[in-house]
């Protein structure tokens, strides 16, 4: 275990003098060991954050993070990098706002610039139904002491001057809402920042390992796992495998109440600064932001109800998203879309995630993430607590798996999640 070289202006200046030959590897990838205290399946934001908090807060050192491809190559690299906490239910607001708070200090904590830009998220509302829904969310947010306020139509236009003029709108803009602490961050930096910090604590980050089976002892407890590189002994396995959690859980012998859907996003060619807030329009089912590189990052909706493990996209969704985008911003009609990507996201029956113990002793789950990017710090923090103490963290107790047994749902579908 070797402490990280500190990133600072002085280190950068020193590097400049030595032709930048002085930089260590950001994180270590030692050979796989035959035994670990905790094995985390999935080297994305959630998996690496969990490893980091396990090592930092709970003093567990023999941890492996196993990744099938490369770290941050799954949903951590396939999102629209939006961070916000404007949910409907009290428990969700507390959890996601904790995440925003952790993001606010994460660059300093990890000594890695995650480029968190709290540029505000503005919702544009075109129907009375969504005005009413948003006002309800606003009241709930304010009850929890989280910043969120309603905007008049004029205020929305002041904040987003590039919006279509009133006479060109099919549906008039009735108003909006804003969370000023919301924003975007650099997704690769978050993955690498956590990887680097975890690695400094001695966490083994292993890429290109495929899990082929999960072993259980005679009493049913977890005893290890089979991989394409051989057997690993461990008593605690956590799965944070993005769209693949169902398959992992099946290997362990349980079925999670999840379905995997495809969600896609696109970026335009880079343009001059035109939009300094994150924009979301629930009525047209489109959301976008202007990235630091100058590209417009546009997110669409999912193919409701259609299970999909494909990471590509679908033309029908692109079509409807672009139509929604141009309705708000006719100016963008000449922009070219440069890239498009899709991610396999999981949806639990109530639209809320699962961070939980399971009926199998030693098997933990972080799954059902829909917009899991914004939850990486809080998800890692609470899952680490769950693994170390064998009991849920107070913030994530609402996300326990057995809520489905009693139908004690935490309904977030139809709020920030456009599915029902």
């Amino acid at each position, binding site marked *: 275990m070797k402490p990280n070289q500190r990133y600072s202006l002085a280190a950068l200046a020193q590097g400049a003098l030595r032709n930048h030959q002085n930089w260590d590897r950001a994180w270590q990838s030692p050979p796989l060991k035959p035994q670990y205290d905790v094995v985390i399946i999935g080297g994305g934001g959630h998996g690496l954050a969990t490893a980091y908090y396990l090592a930092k807060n709970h003093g567990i050192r023999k941890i492996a993070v196993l990744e099938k491809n490369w770290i941050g190559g799954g949903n951590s690299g396939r999102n629209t990098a939006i961070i916000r906490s404007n949910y409907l239910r009290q428990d969700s607001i507390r959890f996601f706002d904790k995440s925003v708070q952790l993001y606010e200090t994460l660059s300093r904590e990890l000594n890695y610039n995650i480029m968190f830009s709290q540029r505000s998220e503005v919702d544009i509302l075109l129907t009375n139904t969504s005005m009413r829904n948003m006002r309800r969310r606003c009241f709930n947010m304010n009850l929890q002491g989280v910043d969120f306020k309603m905007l008049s139509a004029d205020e929305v236009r002041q904040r987003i001057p590039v919006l279509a003029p009133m006479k060109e709108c099919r549906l008039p803009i009735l108003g909006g809402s804003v969370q000023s602490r919301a924003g975007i961050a650099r997704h690769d930096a978050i993955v690498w920042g956590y990887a680097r910090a975890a690695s400094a604590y001695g966490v083994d980050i292993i890429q290109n390992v495929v899990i082929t089976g999960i072993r259980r002892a005679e009493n049913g407890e977890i005893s290890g796992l089979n991989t394409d590189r051989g057997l690993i002994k461990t008593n605690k396995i956590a799965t944070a495998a993005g769209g693949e959690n169902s398959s992992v859980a099946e290997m362990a012998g349980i*079925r999670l109440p999840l379905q*995997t859907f495809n969600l896609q996003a696109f970026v335009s060619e880079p343009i001059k600064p035109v939009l300094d807030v994150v924009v979301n329009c629930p009525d047209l089912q489109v959301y976008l932001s202007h990235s630091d590189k100058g590209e417009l990052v546009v997110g669409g909706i999912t193919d409701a109800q259609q299970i*999909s*493990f494909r990471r590509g996209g679908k033309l029908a969704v692109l*079509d409807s998203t672009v139509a929604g985008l141009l309705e708000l911003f006719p100016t963008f009609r000449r922009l070219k879309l440069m890239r498009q990507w899709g991610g396999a996201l999981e949806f639990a*029956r109530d639209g809320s995630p699962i961070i939980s113990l399971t009926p199998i002793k030693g098997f933990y789950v972080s799954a059902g993430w829909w917009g899991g990017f914004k939850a990486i710090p809080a998800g890692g923090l609470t899952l680490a607590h769950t693994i170390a103490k064998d009991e849920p963290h107070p913030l994530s107790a609402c996300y326990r798996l057995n809520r489905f*047994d009693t139908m004690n749902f935490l309904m977030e579908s139809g709020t920030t999640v456009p599915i029902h």
Partner: protein
Amino acid sequence: MLLIRCPWCGLRSESEFHCNGEVRPIRPHSSSLTDQQSVQHTCDRLNFKGWIEEDWCHSKGCGEWFRLNRHTVTHEIDQD
């Protein structure tokens, strides 16, 4: 864009259709279910890679409901 065959209208664009998810058993009367079975009916869903039988509706066309097989990885459709 997928082309989907509506039993009435023939091959039409996917955007005219609504998918209602996997074909599910009809819910038995609640008096014949234990709590656990009732929960299972509500929460248990298929989630696997491979062919799945789904209910679809030609919602922006004639409104007909029908079934088709779709592959959850390749999105291929088999209506034979």
